[in-house]
């Protein structure tokens, strides 16, 4: 038995099955990300004055990633339009661009994660605080070396965009027996980083999932073009809707996490 309305729209709704399905899914996704944005607001408002970080993320890198994702959105919609105009070659080109841009986005995000996981705050037993990126951390050696700076007050670590924010970096060798606590900038370091990793990690999973689906439709899935063009075009539209949603989420994540 054939499932009805997989290709042509149902007369009363004007929609084919997959389109209803993807919009229902996207509605649930809005609530998922909405809950996490709500958590972000609560954590931000709950942070004591001066202890919510500013400037912890690299704005130029985040901007480039935003531009990458926006570009992938236009290539996705162009791929769909190419299918509608029966230009399979152009579809292949545009979707290949989308996949490459998705990989670029994930690579840039990985670079940013790596930057955070190699960034340490070191509290000395005498109360001094050093902050910077690890240069040498051999567990067998009696010292660690970071490229960073000392701060007089821990509060200085939270505002990296203010007038007194710029600290010249130097290589600091720290004997292990002087270290009271040494913690990298992972999700456990601060509630800002916890929500940053949660939001961007979930978003990155969506990018990877979307890229896999688009990759399938670009590769083996594209054989359907020869047998059922209309259904294939519908699949491109549905995967495109998901991809645009991923872009839409990032449009909010970027200013919220990087700029304000």
């Amino acid at each position, binding site marked *: 038995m054939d499932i009805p309305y997989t290709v042509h729209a149902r007369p009363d*709704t*004007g*929609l084919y099955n997959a*389109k*209803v399905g993807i*919009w*229902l899914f996207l*509605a649930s996704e*809005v*609530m998922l990300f*909405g*809950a996490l944005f*709500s958590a972000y*607001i*609560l*954590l931000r*408002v*709950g*942070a*004591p004055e001066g*202890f919510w970080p500013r400037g912890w993320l690299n*704005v130029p890198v985040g*901007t480039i990633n*935003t*531009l990458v994702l*926006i*570009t992938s*959105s*236009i290539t*996705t*919609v*162009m791929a769909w*339009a190419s299918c*509608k*105009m029966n230009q399979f070659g152009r579809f292949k080109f545009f979707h290949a661009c989308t996949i490459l841009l998705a990989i670029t986005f994930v690579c840039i995000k990985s670079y940013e994660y790596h930057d955070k996981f190699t960034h340490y705050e070191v509290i000395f037993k005498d109360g001094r605080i050093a902050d910077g990126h690890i240069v040498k951390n051999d567990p067998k050696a009696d010292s660690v070396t970071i490229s960073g700076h000392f701060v007089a007050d821990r509060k200085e670590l939270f505002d990296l965009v203010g007038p007194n924010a710029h600290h010249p970096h130097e290589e600091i060798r720290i004997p292990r027996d002087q270290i009271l606590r040494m913690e990298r900038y992972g999700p456990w*370091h*601060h*509630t800002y980083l916890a929500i940053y990793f949660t939001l961007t990690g979930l978003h990155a999973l969506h990018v990877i999932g979307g890229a896999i689906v688009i990759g399938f439709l670009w590769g083996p899935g594209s054989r359907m073009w020869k047998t059922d063009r209309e259904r294939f075009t519908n699949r491109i539209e549905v995967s*495109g*809707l998901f991809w*645009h*949603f991923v*872009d*839409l989420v990032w*449009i*909010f994540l*970027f*200013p*919220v996490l990087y*700029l*304000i």
Partner: protein
Amino acid sequence: MDAVAHDDDFRQHVRRYLYVFYALLFGTLITVGASYIPFGDHEINIGVALFIACSKAFLVAGYFMHLLSERKMIYGLLAFTCFFFAGLMALTVCSFADFPTSTFTH
């Protein structure tokens, strides 16, 4: 003849998509630029950034996702989503009256 008209129609769409794309690129640069402008109150910076983000989201949803010319059923579905999303945010705002303590670590 129909196929030609169909293709012309899509070429027009493609042109529109390109304009939206340029607007999104411009919007991104404006977002970054505006974040460095000292408006006096940081809350204004937050408002400006969110306003630009909402405008960009409108462009993506309206044109790339074709929401401006979508079917009634999708609008109905999104109306429910908006309702529940607004409820979620209202609950978040209401919670400020009885804020959970110790949500801040280190």
